[in-house]
């Protein structure tokens, strides 16, 4: 029923009510003072206003005065008046009736508004409760949709950004393209946007950006089917309250997800870490036993024939290689998981070069090694065990792929120390210079040297973790592998 029909209906009913009152009062003429008839009519005006509103009340005011004049004041059944003082009665009656009518209708409106507000507050409270207990976005979206539909008679669509800041719709309704553009505009500007029902002829919409405590969380699009935008504007405070609760809820769900992610990551890190240590121990134990037992073959009394002794030696070599491979794999796993903390200390690089040469002295015996260190090399900040591993890997490569001469260089270029291991021999094919640092890639396919392509990959992981770089260069008669370590700021030494 639209406003006009309401209007006519109110006039009709109030006229009828006044008429009925007049009919009921007519038998009282002569027995009751006319003043009391006036009171009756005023009572009817109040009742009509309370029940039906201002229109009815005002109508009743005029109709009551007219009926009073025609039916009760002499001469009856005519609008004229014999006693002129009744004109004052009519005027005052009308004024009083109108004032009562306005006041009562005002009171009534306030009461209705208060009731509506109470209802909406209750609904808002229930929404907040529903959102507080929701654990998924779907639950939250449906709680919001339900509320908007029941309390505000609006269709709600949540527009939320994903990890790449693209907006997506959530909810059972769908926005048109134009509406999505409006939602985008609201999100980007951070302001509430409203459109009348011109945009697609049937709907009027409000777009409320959701402001979280740290950043924008999305947009709440509220769409209505009623023609009057007045209704929506009246609810704007309500909509803003809903938007605020929604933003808080979306933010909470986001942080719940972040917390879950972090928990999962920590748990999986712990698992990986304990697997790696268990593996390390479990693999090294049989390796140790096998190596020890193979070695003990050399000591058997009476001594085994030479062939058996040679086999025992070969067995030892193979086991050591296996051990090296296992160490490399485990370290690679740790480094790639980002779980390996470097134990960096300021120290001279000569020391770690010395220990690497010492470790490999048995296989280096047939090679000629030159060391050229710049005289002004400062202390460098690095993890000795890891850089020793890098140097050993590079030296082993130099031995494997070189033909005798090895040179170790260290000097300063800019903000980095450059260390290089150079070997004479066959160059690496130009297109493989970068590839050799990837996992399981060997320098020359035709080479029959043993070993997986892990060594250089580990070197790269270790050097990168130190903030440096590693690469290979071909020389006229060999290969040079260079790695850098940042100089940083060495501590001051007071001697």
């Amino acid at each position, binding site marked *: 029923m639209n406003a006009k029909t309401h209007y006519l209906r109110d006039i009709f009913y109030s006229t009828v009510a006044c008429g009925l009152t007049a009919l009921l009062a007519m038998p009282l003429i002569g027995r009751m003072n006319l003043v009391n008839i006036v009171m009756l009519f005023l009572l009817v005006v109040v009742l009509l206003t309370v029940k039906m509103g201002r229109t009815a009340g005002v109508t009743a005011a005029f109709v009551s005065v007219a009926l009073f004049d025609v039916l009760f004041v002499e001469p009856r059944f005519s609008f004229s008046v014999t006693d002129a003082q009744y004109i004052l009665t009519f005027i005052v009656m009308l004024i009083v009736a109108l004032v009562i009518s306005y006041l009562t209708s005002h009171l009534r409106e306030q009461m209705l508004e208060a009731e509506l507000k109470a209802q909406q507050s209750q609904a808002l409270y229930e929404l907040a409760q529903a959102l507080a207990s929701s654990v998924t976005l779907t639950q939250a979206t449906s709680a919001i949709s339900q509320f908007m539909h029941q309390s505000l008679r609006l269709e709600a669509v949540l527009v939320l950004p994903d990890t790449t800041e693209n907006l997506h719709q959530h909810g059972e309704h769908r926005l048109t393209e134009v509406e999505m553009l409006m939602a985008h505009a609201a999100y980007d500007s951070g302001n509430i946007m409203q459109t009348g029902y011109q945009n697609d002829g049937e709907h009027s919409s409000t777009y409320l950006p959701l402001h979280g405590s740290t950043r924008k969380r999305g947009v709440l699009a509220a769409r209505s089917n009623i023609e009057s935008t007045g209704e929506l504007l009246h609810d704007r405070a309500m909509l803003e309250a809903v938007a605020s609760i929604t933003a808080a809820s979306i933010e909470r769900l986001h942080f719940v997800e972040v917390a879950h992610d972090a928990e999962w990551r920590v748990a999986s890190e712990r698992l990986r870490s304990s697997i790696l*240590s268990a593996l*390390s*121990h479990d693999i*090294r*134990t049989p*390796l*140790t*036993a*096998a*190596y*020890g*037992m193979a*070695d*003990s073959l*050399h*000591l058997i*009394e009476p001594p085994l024939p030479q062939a058996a002794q040679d086999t025992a030696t070969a067995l*030892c070599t193979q*086991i*050591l290689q296996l*051990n090296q491979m296992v*160490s490399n794999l*485990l*370290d690679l796993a740790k480094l790639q998981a980002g779980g390996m903390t470097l*134990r960096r*200390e*300021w*120290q*001279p690089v*000569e*020391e*770690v*070069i*010395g*220990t690497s*040469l*010492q470790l490999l002295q048995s296989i280096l015996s047939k090679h000629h090694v030159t*060391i050229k260190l710049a005289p002004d090399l400062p*202390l460098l900040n690095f*993890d*000795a*065990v890891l850089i*020793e591993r890098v140097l050993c890997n590079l030296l082993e490569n130099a031995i494997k792929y070189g033909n005798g001469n090895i040179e170790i260089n260290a000097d300063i270029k800019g903000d980095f120390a450059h260390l290089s291991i150079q070997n004479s021999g066959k160059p690496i094919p130009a297109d493989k210079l970068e590839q050799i640092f990837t996992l399981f890639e060997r320098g020359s396919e035709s080479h029959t040297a043993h070993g997986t392509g892990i060594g250089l990959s580990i070197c790269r992981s270790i050097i990168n973790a130190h903030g440096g770089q590693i690469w290979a260069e071909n020389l006229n008669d060999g290969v040079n592998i260079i790695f850098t370590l940042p100089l940083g700021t*060495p*501590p001051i*030494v007071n*001697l």
Partner: protein
Amino acid sequence: MTTPNTILVVEDQHDILKFISDALRKENIRVLTASNIRDALNESTTGQPDMAILDLGLPDGDGLTLIQNLRTWSQLPILVLSARSDELDKINALDAGADDYLTKPFAIGELLARVRALLRRRATSQSNTSPLIVFGDISVNRAQREVMRGTEALHLTAIEYQLLCIFLVNVGKVLTHRYLLNEIWGGTFTENAHYLRIYVGHLRKKLELDPTQPKHILTETGVGYRFVLGD
């Protein structure tokens, strides 16, 4: 070694225990075995070993408590066996009182060399009171505070000399960075860690034939230093 030495081997893996025990017995050493900490403590009190070899990966707890316990009543040399990936467990063992370590897997020859060195140290420390020590072409007279290369006197700064003396008192033993820093500077680790490296470098320059390939002041990467008299 006329009276046979006794060594307590604490190892839970049967095969490893076997080849270690066999190798030691061939060297005329009496072997006591234990496969967990509790038995090790029992054997150490009843068997009175001259030395202990302890695997750090025991199932009923790390070897640290065993080392700490032993050190409260005995100075017997302790050699620990450790898997490589962790320098930290070696450092902790050394700081708790272990003398040396071997990384698994290890050759029997290496094991026997360490064992001999530790047994020799124990024997000499019980009888040694001489202030004179010789290594390589260097001779040190601690009573006179003299360090000579042949007939040439070498000049060492106070700290360098102090460092050298610590090494000479602990021949063959692995000294952690923390231990050395504490002995010389007695203070916090992080402030002075690099000083230790620098002084060791200076000492090597003065005493070693080739400072980049030292024969006496050896680096134990990630752990500390070890001083050996050499051949």
